[in-house]
């Protein structure tokens, strides 16, 4: 079967997506600290997965003649979950640093987080049910 322009387009999008997913994973592996590692998966991989979904959205109507709406849903759920996951990892990390477990100088939080500048502390350390084991910030 000859490769039509649509097929070439789909292949190109897939290769671009694969490239970005690879770069995101490489960033996860090579960055020096947890906070810098977070940046790879939250952004670059979003584009990687997004490209695969776009390719899928072109492929099924053009090649199979069927339509599927699941790609849109996957995009929606991805956009909902990626920032929340990053936020939870960051918060867990702040607590570990706060208790001086596994400190990493590359994260710049050995000497404490920057002050909020608005009077109260950061919510992770200063909630209604503050854990007395947490050091003051």
């Amino acid at each position, binding site marked *: 079967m000859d490769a039509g322009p649509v097929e070439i387009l789909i292949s190109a999008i897939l290769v671009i997506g694969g490239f*970005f997913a690879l*770069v*995101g994973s*490489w*960033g996860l592996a*090579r*960055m*020096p600290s947890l*906070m*810098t590692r*977070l*940046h*790879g998966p*939250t*952004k*670059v991989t*979003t*584009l990687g997965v*997004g490209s695969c979904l776009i390719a899928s959205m072109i492929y099924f109507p053009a090649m199979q003649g069927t339509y*599927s*709406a*699941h790609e*849109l*849903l996957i995009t*929606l759920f991805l*956009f*909902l979950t*990626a*920032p*929340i996951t*990053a*936020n939870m990892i*960051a*918060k867990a990390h*702040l607590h570990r640093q706060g208790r001086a477990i596994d400190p990493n100088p*590359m994260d*710049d*939080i050995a000497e404490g*987080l*920057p*002050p*909020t*500048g*608005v*009077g*109260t*502390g*950061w*919510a*992770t350390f*200063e*909630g209604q049910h503050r854990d007395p084991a947490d050091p003051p910030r």
Partner: protein
Amino acid sequence: MFKKLLPHPALTVTLIIVWMLLANELTPGGLVLGVIIGVVIPILTSPFWPARPRLRFGPPTWFYLLLVLWDIITASFQIAVIVLFRRSRDLRSAWLVVPLELRSPEAITMLAGTISMTPGTVSCDVSACGRALLVHALDTPDPEAEVARIKQRYEARLMRIFR
């Protein structure tokens, strides 16, 4: 009566659309089930959102979504370049404190999510009173300028969407 049956029309519509997309086909039976879900879930969950914000679904909202999409694409290129070519010791990562003018929790959540998805920044924490965001930037030559950029590019637009 209407308010009691449909306490959150936008959530109802969203649920019906998501249900239809999940089912992946347009059948009368599926639509009926979707409408039932769309009516029942907002009523059951109404105690969870006592004071929901007023949202405007106008051109600013769509423009904001397109802007964020565009920023995700450009951000990915920037981050890819940093990941591939920048040495670790040359990274200028920094903590940013973004003072917030937004007040509703939903708007702040939107802003935090946007920050996490876009160029070189991940939002990590919010101050206990909800008036400042803690953001980690992967590589920023000028933290002040980065904070100003976040404020005028995203927060100012969100102020117009959430009233």
